[in-house]
């Protein structure tokens, strides 16, 4: 057993890769391949449960560390480690893995073992990205992720799959190249690729700005942050359901994870300089994504744009530069993975039956498919952040963190604007729901559609359970990430308890307009000569 537990991170990371290799070479028969991939994904989830239960929430540093010299006398090493932030993302990845495999049972029929091989390969690359503590290793995983995703979209995708796959690939590549330059620069400075050594570097102000920009660009494209988002709707629309689920569920989080793990602690001065602009973009993305989602004629595209909006919340949380906002951001990553993952799975369910996703093709689906309508309702509510479901906790903490942040200018204004996203979210999601599920069954093609099968329910039930579970007991995650966040944010030297009470005199308190102006826009209103 110690053979596994001593190298648990390697096992978790590479088990799917081994599975992928076997799927490409040995396990070629369709039925076998499905069960084999399922077994591997489940085994990986079980392995990751070991991490969950043996993780020491009382520490904020890396645990289960594995470090072996690799290249150039150990300047570059095989170095894996896991703190709370990595833990929750690893759990999200391994949790979604079996569900994704199960969702392809009927949906993918062409070159099945190849497809499942790519899915597992992708999972390995994502896990590696979350666990790598050596920059070269990280970069290898980061780029390796592109290959399977490229094929998943490009081979098993829809009509314009080549366009979407190439767009996805090139977008990400462009960003990554700048980051590679940054990594090489830092490597020259420190003589090691170890993240910890990078953190110890003294980097000049100018260099920090440039390096931050290079790193941030790579991550922002992946997130994607407005206005770098246009690859996402195309990729989602063209990708097969399983691809979309992984893309929205985990892959986008690699961007926000990268910001938090690398861009922010490595270049505090870059953060200080760029944070206001990033927040402006994040808030723009929240509102813009929501408004554009509202008018989409295609359900999947609508969900894709809603991701732009939700990920805007995550970025806002991270760059609110409060531990509360950052925690909310991480929580929102999970919540978004669950709710949007579920939404894409649900869109896949109807696509399998009707081979279209045009909203105007539907209407009144709740008649023949009550179970489907119920699941969709729950996912919709999770997406709009109804209290009691996971999305609310994340949004609440992000908005509250931003509102009370003093590290960034106009925290209150940002929170107010971002909060409009909560209203807009309800508008576009419920409107879509109304047009798809409610009303009369107008289109004859929708008559006699089968409700969800048991298999489809098995895929969705775990997601729904966790939406509720995390919504009611967010401590499950928050307790495990608290110290890690503190450690990651330490280089930023934030004032932890730096909130201050409003300093408003009573005369001002009688003037509501000025007061709301003051509280919302943080205009100084002190009249007592302070």
């Amino acid at each position, binding site marked *: 057993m110690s053979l596994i537990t001593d190298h648990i991170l390697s096992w978790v990371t590479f088990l799917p890769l081994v599975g992928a290799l076997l799927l490409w070479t040995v396990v070629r028969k369709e039925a076998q391949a499905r069960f084999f991939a399922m077994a591997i994904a489940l085994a990986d989830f079980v392995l990751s449960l070991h991490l969950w239960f043996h993780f020491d929430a009382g520490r904020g540093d890396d645990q289960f560390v594995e470090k072996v010299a690799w290249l150039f006398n150990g300047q570059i090493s095989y170095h894996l480690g896991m703190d709370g932030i990595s833990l929750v993302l690893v759990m999200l990845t391994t949790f979604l893995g079996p569900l994704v495999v199960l969702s392809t049972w009927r949906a993918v029929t062409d070159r099945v073992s190849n497809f499942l091989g790519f899915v597992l390969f992708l999972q390995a690359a994502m896990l590696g990205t979350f666990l790598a503590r050596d920059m070269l290793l990280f970069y290898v995983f980061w780029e390796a992720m592109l290959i399977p995703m490229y094929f998943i979209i490009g081979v098993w995708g829809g009509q314009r799959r080549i366009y979407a796959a190439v767009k996805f690939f090139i977008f990400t590549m462009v960003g990554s190249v700048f980051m590679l330059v940054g990594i090489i620069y830092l490597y020259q400075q420190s003589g090691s690729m170890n993240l910890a050594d990078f953190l110890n570097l003294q980097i000049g102000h100018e260099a920090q700005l440039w390096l931050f920009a290079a790193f941030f660009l790579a991550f922002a494209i992946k997130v994607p942050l407005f206005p770098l988002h246009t690859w996402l709707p195309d990729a989602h629309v063209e990708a097969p359901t399983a691809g979309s689920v992984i893309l929205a569920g985990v892959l986008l989080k690699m961007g926000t994870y990268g910001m938090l793990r690398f861009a922010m602690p490595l270049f505090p001065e870059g953060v200080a300089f760029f944070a206001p602009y990033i927040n402006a973009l994040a808030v723009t993305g929240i509102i813009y994504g929501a408004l554009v989602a509202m008018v989409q004629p295609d359900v999947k595209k609508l969900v894709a744009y809603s991701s732009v909006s939700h990920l805007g919340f995550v970025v806002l949380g991270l760059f609110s530069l409060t531990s509360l906002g950052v925690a909310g951001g991480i929580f929102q990553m999970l919540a978004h993975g669950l709710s949007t993952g579920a939404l894409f799975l649900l869109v896949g369910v109807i696509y399998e039956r009707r081979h279209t996703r045009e909203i105007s093709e539907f209407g009144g689906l709740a008649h023949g498919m009550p179970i489907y309508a119920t699941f969709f309702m729950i996912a919709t509510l999770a997406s709009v952040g109804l209290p009691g479901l996971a999305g609310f906790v994340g949004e609440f903490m992000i908005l509250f963190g931003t*509102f009370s942040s003093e590290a960034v200018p106009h925290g209150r204004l940002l929170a107010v604007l971002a909060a409009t996203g909560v209203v807009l979210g309800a508008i576009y999601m419920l409107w879509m729901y109304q047009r798809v599920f409610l*009303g009369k069954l107008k289109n004859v093609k929708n008559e006699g559609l089968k409700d969800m099968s048991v298999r489809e329910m098995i895929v969705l039930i775990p997601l729904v359970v966790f939406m509720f579970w995390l919504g009611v007991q967010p401590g499950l995650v928050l307790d495990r990430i608290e110290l890690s966040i503190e450690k990651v944010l330490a280089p930023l030297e934030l004032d932890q308890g730096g909130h201050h009470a409003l300093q408003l005199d009573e005369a001002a308190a009688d003037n509501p307009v000025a007061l709301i102006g003051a509280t919302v826009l943080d205009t100084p209103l002190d009249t007592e000569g302070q």
Partner: protein
Amino acid sequence: MESHTTETLLRWIVLVPLLGAAINGLLNRRLPRQVAGLLASAAVLISFALSVTVFLRLTGMPAEARFVSDIVTTWIGFGNLQVDLGFAMDPLSAVMSLVVTGVGFLIHIYSLGYMAHDKGSQRFFTYLNLFIFAMMTLVLGENLLMLFVGWEGVGLCSYLLISFWFTDEANAAAGKKAFIVNRIGDFGFLLGMFLIGATLLPHLGGGEGLLSFRVLQQHAGILAPAATAICLLLFVGATGKSAQIPLFVWLPDAMAGPTPVSALIHAATMVTAGVYMIARMNFLFVLTPTAMTVVATVGAVTALFAATIALTQNDIKKVLAYSTVSQLGYMMLACGVGAFSIAIFHVMTHAFFKALLFLGSGSVIHAMSDEQDMRVMGGLRKKLPLTFWTFIAGTLALAGIAPLAGFFSKDEILWNAWNSGNKVLWAIGFIAAGMTAFYMMRLVVLTFFGENRASAEVKSHIHESPATMTMPLVVLAVLSIAGGWVGIPHFLGGGAHFMTWLEPVFSQPAVVAELAHGAVAHGAEAAAHGAEAASHGAEHAGAHADTTMEWILAGASLAWGILGLLAGYFVYARKVSVAESFQKMGGGWPHKVLLNKYYVDEAYEGAIIRPMYRLSKTVLWKWVDVGLINGLLVEGSALVVAVVGSVMRLFQNGLVRFYAWSFSIGVAVFVLYLSFSG
């Protein structure tokens, strides 16, 4: 922190309906319809019984100590932010619990009959139980965020129930509208919470729940400088939930739901959540004369505004809906003048008589084969005797006729408005009261008197409703008559027990009282009264004053109510020509404006919804996203590369001899360059 009595029963008050909803929801069609209904009713009955149990325990405590709490666990705990998942009951939430579960139970029973023939009645009872769960979370929530959970939960249930008959596009749209308009209010609520949190968080020690009402009250001093902004933001939330100007538009549309839903959610319980929340946060509101004035003004204006619309509506439920908006305005007015206990008093009496009226209208609609237009009703008095007499009880109570429930609560509101010093508020309330009596009489006459104007087909089916429907009507009628007697004011020789019961909630701790008096020094008489009422208890304020004025006002409003009723009867039963001349008055346009609800929906549609849609679709999506970002920037840069590539491609034509030529020329140029550059 003072020591609390823990009462683990509280969580079960909330959880039992949830359990009922879960069982009904999961088994759904596998349950026979009647079983589902009985199960749901039983769940609410248990909840009611538990509420009574805890209520009785509260009565056994000394007045100041009437507080029990049940902290289940920490909900959100991060750094020094701590929000508990917990419930608490004090006199205020006790009243609300009893009303919600009590009226809720009656409406469940009523639904057994009303929904007996509906295919989806299991789903209906699931939602109904879910609603009771959410509403009890709202009422019993120990902190502001728990209240918000319930707040959003009831919004969801309202959405689900309004669009219950989702086959009809209009119902689905109404449900969506309700949810979205409520969300706009929630936007304010959220910001209010953030402002409280941001102000208070740095001052909190470990283990103190940030948004806990007790903690907030203790630290009112810290919150005082931001009180105006906080209260105004919270009030935005209240305008959404309690259908006040400008966010009232969803409530009339919400009548698209089944009638029991209109009675339970859109009359008796959910819509009063805004009033409850303001009463709950009274310790902050009394600190801010500005916010109080805003609350009172919006309430009064809404009361009058909605009453005028109710004068002209032809749909029986629409009249009651606007009447509800109007009555909610009264409750807000009461809050705004600092008479919180009176506001809650009116919440309770209104729950009785408005639930009664809605259920009565449901009985009428049921009898009329789902017809809601009063113009084709009439003469139902004899065919639906029980419905008629209970309806009359509700009408008189709503019109404020002594000694029915509505008289005491409405009269107390008007008296407090008068007493607040702002006579305009009183006058608005007074005028609206007359209108209330008038439109209710119009409704009664059109529905129950005269000849029946329906088709022969419909006429032949008219029948009194089954006992499951009429029994709740009778019980509610009794409550509408006698429910106000718990709060008969002192000047009428009553004990004002209701206000005394609520006094501990609204009497401020020393720190708040002091601050409130400080606020008084700054002006605004509304708050002067608010603070006084708060610190001494509202009924004392009445008791100390000269009672002559109170007698005069009470008599005036009683006479005014009777006058309204008589006028309504006269115009619609005796002299129909007068009603017709009303319609033609001023060229007919005042009537048209009222009939079309002042075109508020149209204004919102034209000024907000459509521009936003166009902006999103044309500008943001087509121009910015597809055109500018994707077209110009993304594909533009791809195009540059492609153009450069296709130019370069001309050189790769596959002709070996061309390559040889260019190679030779290249070499020649190179050699020449080398030889001449020396």
